[in-house]
């Protein structure tokens, strides 16, 4: 019997490893797709970064002299 003969347990491990790898790849693809969809929607693009920004300042009407 050759030493490198594949046992049934190797097949099961291989199946498990491939399945886990596909799940991880799928998860990455979903997160990537979700990010693209969120960016296209334009939501949460301008988070607060602790720096004053013109778009965050309240609108004040100029007082006419």
């Amino acid at each position, binding site marked *: 019997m050759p030493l490198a003969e594949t*046992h049934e*347990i*190797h097949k*099961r*491990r291989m*199946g*498990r490893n*491939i*399945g*886990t790898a596909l799940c991880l790849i799928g998860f990455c693809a*979903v997160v990537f*797709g*979700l990010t*693209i*969809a*969120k960016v*296209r*929607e334009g939501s949460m693009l301008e988070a607060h970064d602790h720096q004053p920004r013109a778009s965050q300042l309240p609108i004040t009407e100029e007082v006419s002299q």
Partner: protein
Amino acid sequence: MSDFTAQSVTETRTGTPEAGFGDYFALLKPRVMSLVVFTALVGLLVAPGGVSPMIGFTAILFIALGAGASGALNMWYDADIDAVMKRTAKRPVPAGKVPAGEALTLGLWLSAISVVMLGLATNWVAAGLLAFTIFFYAVIYSMWLKRSTPWNIVIGGAAGSFPPMIGWAAVTGDVSLASVLMFGLIFMWTPPHFWALALFMKGDYHKAEVPMLTVTHGRAETRKQILIYTALLVPVAIGLAFTSVGGPVYLATAVVLNAIFLKGAWDIWRREEAEAEADGYKVEKKVFKFSLLYLFLHFGALLIDAIWRLI
């Protein structure tokens, strides 16, 4: 160490052969997940507003994964009674393919991932409802109600009723009358569906000492309760037609299906046990099969009305 030694060490240490990927997938109860996917999808599609296809896909994926996680937690906790019942003895944990601790770990991790991802993809109302559903199924139903009361099916049925409500909340971020009635439709449908099954699946629950209504209150009482719950289901199912998600297709479908279901429940109630045993529970089996179609067609009709409104 050779691989053969590695295998024998693994199997001696755990007392079980190494599990394949399919065994872990089976922990997620794929058949239950398919019903969850369908009802959540309808809840999501009939909700006003709509979401982008990618966000909708992600929402359904993680609602299904959350349902799978609660299935894994259920299999971890119920391994002892699953081993006794013929219907569940081949599940991965009682069959010795997956150690109970791994089912628990998988269930907890998938619960966390599904809730967080649903929250990030849609909103935290939907994520909160999903978290509550997992908690309800794993803790309230599996750990508490299932072994302590014959009304386990009635209250525990709430866990399976949440998916359309979560799908709806994923789009709207709220809970409305329409989503509550979609919840109510599955909630009221669950008892007659399962009790019809319990009438012809004799012995299994009794052997596992699970207090099913057929065992604690007798078969005649179970027949009466099937009729009562079916009668209570009718106004909920028809009432849904008069909300924002209802329409002519749904109303016509609901009227016909509820009349047939009510007739079936009436026939079950009128039958004597000896008569049922003589014909191999023909009526009970017919009503059980019809109940599956009943739910599928109700949600299918909601979908048709939603498409109708778009045209």
